[in-house]
């Protein structure tokens, strides 16, 4: 494995933020995706959805400003932007499952070359595990971006031919943003859109468990 710098979690979030179109309704999952709201490009307005019934979440609440009846899906007190609304959890998931959100950005354990996602349970982990809103969100959202490290701590690829972890959804992922690359899931297979600075497409392919299609040298991952 090349011993070269990879993107930080914050940089993955920063890159993923560029996938959000102006005016989009967006759900952010646990982990790296939750960092994205700090990195929205100037001039872009997006509306954050929370599955407990909020559209138009703003920044996290500051100390002393918290109302514990106004929390995000991670139980963190948040604020609202002007034009926000509240609704019940069934309506919140009518939005996810019904395809009303423009983009969901989720964490991932594995993504297959067909776009299958595994992100809720590690095989052999003790305890019950928990699904939460991930399956509804993955199933219904038009564009699903997965943010994750390109490999596990042990160096095993997380982009694979077939997921071996318990699945969240079939053929649901649109784009994968990792610490090494931006990869699109297309009907003809995975397409390597960008690679991290100092990395080559061939090196990224070596750390990927499925075939990446690319023409010549893909451009470097942009962060802004």
């Amino acid at each position, binding site marked *: 494995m090349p011993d070269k710098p990879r993107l930080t979690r914050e940089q993955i979030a920063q890159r993923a933020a560029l996938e959000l179109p102006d005016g989009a*309704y967006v759900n952010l999952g646990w982990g790296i995706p939750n960092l994205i709201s700090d990195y929205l490009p100037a001039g872009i*307005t997006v*509306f954050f959805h929370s599955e407990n019934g909020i559209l138009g979440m703003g920044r996290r609440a500051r100390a002393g400003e918290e109302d514990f009846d106004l929390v995000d899906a991670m139980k963190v007190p948040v604020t609202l932007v*002007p*034009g926000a*609304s509240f609704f019940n959890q069934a309506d919140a*998931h*009518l*939005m996810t499952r*019904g395809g009303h959100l423009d983009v969901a950005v989720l964490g991932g354990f594995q993504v297959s070359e067909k776009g299958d996602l595994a992100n809720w349970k590690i095989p052999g982990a003790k305890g019950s595990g928990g699904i939460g809103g991930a399956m509804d969100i993955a199933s219904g959202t038009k564009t699903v971006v997965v943010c994750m490290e390109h490999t596990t701590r042990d160096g095993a690829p997380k982009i694979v031919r077939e997921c071996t972890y318990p699945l969240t959804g079939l053929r649901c992922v649109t784009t994968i943003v990792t610490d090494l690359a931006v990869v699109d899931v297309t009907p003809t297979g995975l397409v390597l859109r960008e690679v991290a600075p100092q990395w080559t497409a061939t090196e990224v392919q070596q750390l990927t468990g499925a075939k990446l299609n690319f023409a010549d040298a893909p451009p470097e991952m942009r962060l802004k």
Partner: protein
Amino acid sequence: MKQKLYSDIDAAIADVPDGARMMFGGFGGAGFPNNLIQALARKGTKEIFAISNNCGTRDGELGILFKLNRIRHIIASFPGPHSNHFQERLAAKEVTIELVPQGILCERMRAAAAGLLGFYTAVGVGTEVAAGKEERVIDGNRCILEMPIHADFAFIKAEKADELGNLTYHLAAQNFNPIMAMAAKTTIVEVEEIVPVGSIDPESVMTPAIFVHRIVQAKGIRYAG
């Protein structure tokens, strides 16, 4: 960011093509998007596949579209005692209708909105509406399979909109409007009043902005027919 506000009602509906599947809100004279319907009549869109509780009230509500013979098929629950233009087109075999129980009409639209692919209900079992539908027994209850109703456009009526598309409705004028807003690909609303973003309390929003794509100020007809 794309603006949802249209100053010209004709511009707001300019891309509704012939053959469009369209939902129209309203019940009992209240909550009908009468100005949008009039604009559609002016534009001349034809071969419409309509979804609405009723089938017009004289020339008002959907009546004008039946009078002009613009609707080819309608899914409705209760055509209504003054749906004379519809009844004439029906007798002349110029329009067809699927009659649906009113709550099932709501649920089928909500199923489309919620990404559900069908549901079982006991409503209509043993009646004409069960004809041609899959029937089975679940937990000892006879039931039929009802399918989602999708649409390309919804024309709805609300009381207030902010510029993002958050809506409130007046009294019992909401009826079908919030459901259709959620079920159609493109929802166009006419409102009595457009208010600045932030002036509708987030707890008072009845239809969140995510469901609303175009907003016009209602001018002219409030009640028709």
